[in-house]
């Protein structure tokens, strides 16, 4: 049974909830997210000293924000005084920091958006973007991020320090991009969230109960972003996609921890509430779209077809095949083509699909990808070309790194006759 949280735990909980906003609000003043995080931490230390003694303030978030902001303004003033003194002895006055503004809910949203675009900035490596986003927006501790990635804590700590330094030395502006840059930058933000989700999704077969739920952290981030950018269709598209994928979490792992494929999942274990949320988010993506749907909205639409189907066989494969064709045109990828082939095999038959799969045979990106021979083997077997099917199942078995999957593929090879 979980006991009532201790005072310190309750304060840390408040801090975790508030810290993205505090860091974002302070970063606008000091123009450096590393310093902003330190100032936020100072405010937490002050809270841990004061609150147990004086009681928790009525609005703890506002207290933390005011305390951190106060320190930030002090810091900026000291810098300005220093700069003025430098100027007095004949040096140039650097750009003065803007004065702190009052906290209006919309301003807080703007600050959070600036923080999202900064932690997902393209000057940072993929790993750095993920770590920094989880730390500053997800409110995860360095230890939690390390555990989620199965790497030692100092590795993550260093990754975060380096990322902050890179943002500072490359003079990355703390701002929301507009104009032609915006779409690419938003793409980077969405990709970071999707990567976080997939890291968690790929790991859910593991049994480390201490491993924080990266899927849920990503889901929370994308829901947050949907609230911050209600007019961006791809943000809603990503939210929809993650809600749909998360809805299958309980069904995609067998009691022994092994993965259950979509076609074998017990659909009664799909979470109906998350599906309903996915449908709503997808509708918002449609409603806000001004042009053709983007890659996330298309993937969400495919996931919606699965969510609506009572069984694998009763799925609307024709629509899914069309959606994959649109996706392949929008974001070409051999993996998307392979998925399209599977949908075509269900909608039209194995012969039509085999043509598509054979066209992928020369694709270098799929050379060691076990699903290519595995899909091909399945199609050949459905066409009664058993000898060829067996060879392909064996080839797929030799390529997979997963023991259980290898066993399954070898069994299918033996059954192929």
């Amino acid at each position, binding site marked *: 049974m*979980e006991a009532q*949280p201790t005072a310190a735990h309750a304060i840390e*909980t408040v801090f975790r*909830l508030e810290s993205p906003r505090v860091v974002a609000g302070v970063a606008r003043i000091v123009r450096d997210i590393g310093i902003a995080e330190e100032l936020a931490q100072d405010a937490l230390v002050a809270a841990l000293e004061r609150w147990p003694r004086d009681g928790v303030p*009525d609005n703890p978030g506002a207290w933390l924000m005011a305390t951190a902001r106060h320190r930030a303004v002090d810091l900026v003033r000291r810098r300005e005084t220093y700069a003025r003194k430098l100027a007095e002895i004949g040096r140039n006055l650097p750009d003065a920091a803007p004065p702190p503004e009052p906290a209006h809910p919309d301003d807080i949203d703007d600050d959070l958006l600036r923080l999202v675009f900064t932690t997902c900035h393209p000057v940072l490596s993929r790993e750095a973007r993920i770590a920094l986003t989880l730390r500053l927006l997800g409110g995860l501790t360095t230890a939690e991020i390390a555990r989620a990635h199965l790497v030692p804590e100092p590795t993550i700590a260093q990754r975060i320090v380096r990322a902050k330094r890179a943002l500072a030395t490359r003079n990355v502006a703390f701002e929301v991009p507009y104009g032609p840059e915006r779409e690419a930058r938003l793409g980077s933000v969405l990709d970071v969230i999707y990567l976080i989700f997939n890291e968690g999704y790929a790991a859910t077969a593991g049994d480390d109960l201490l491993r924080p*739920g990266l899927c849920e952290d990503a889901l*929370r*981030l994308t*829901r947050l972003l949907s*609230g911050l950018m209600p007019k961006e269709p791809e943000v809603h598209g990503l939210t929809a996609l993650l809600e749909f994928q998360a809805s299958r979490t309980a069904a995609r792992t067998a009691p022994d921890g092994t993965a259950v494929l979509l076609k074998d999942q017990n659909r009664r274990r799909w979470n109906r509430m998350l599906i309903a949320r996915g449908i709503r988010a997808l509708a918002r993506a449609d409603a806000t779209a001004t042009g053709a749907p983007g890659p996330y909205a298309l993937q969400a639409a495919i996931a919606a077809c699965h969510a609506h189907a009572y069984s694998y066989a009763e799925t609307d494969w024709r629509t899914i095949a069309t959606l994959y064709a649109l996706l392949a045109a929008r974001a070409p990828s051999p993996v998307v083509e392979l998925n399209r082939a599977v949908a075509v095999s269900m909608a039209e038959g194995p012969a039509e699909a085999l043509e598509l799969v054979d066209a992928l045979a020369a694709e270098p990106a799929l050379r060691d990808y076990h699903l290519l021979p595995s899909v091909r083997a399945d199609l050949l077997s459905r066409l009664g070309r058993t000898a060829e099917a067996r060879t392909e199942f064996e080839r797929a078995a030799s390529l997979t790194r997963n023991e259980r999957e290898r066993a399954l593929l070898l069994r299918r090879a033996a059954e192929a006759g």
Partner: protein
Amino acid sequence: MPRYLSLVRIDEASAPAEGPSEELMQRMGELIEEITKAGVMLDTAGLTPSAQGARVRWEGGSISVTDGPFTESKEVVGGYALMQCKDMAEALEWTKRFLKTHEEFWTVTCEVREIAEG
């Protein structure tokens, strides 16, 4: 990340007859928007008075239906919030903030329960 159901219980007899004040609705609306934007609130709603509800009971192998209001209970469920939180401490923190939107003359109990997953 576990989900928590907060069952909001109120004493219908002592609750203001004219319902919640405009200011309360305003504060509550802002807070709910904040919790939703934070990605925490999955679903929330208030319920119509228990006079419009019914209790359906299974006991001794037979069904009985009792129409509302449920005067024999001091507090009845008046609303709910379904939240996805990191832990119970976070669920309690949001619940406290929800309760604080009410004026002093209200008596409201939130029963916060973790949803059994799996």
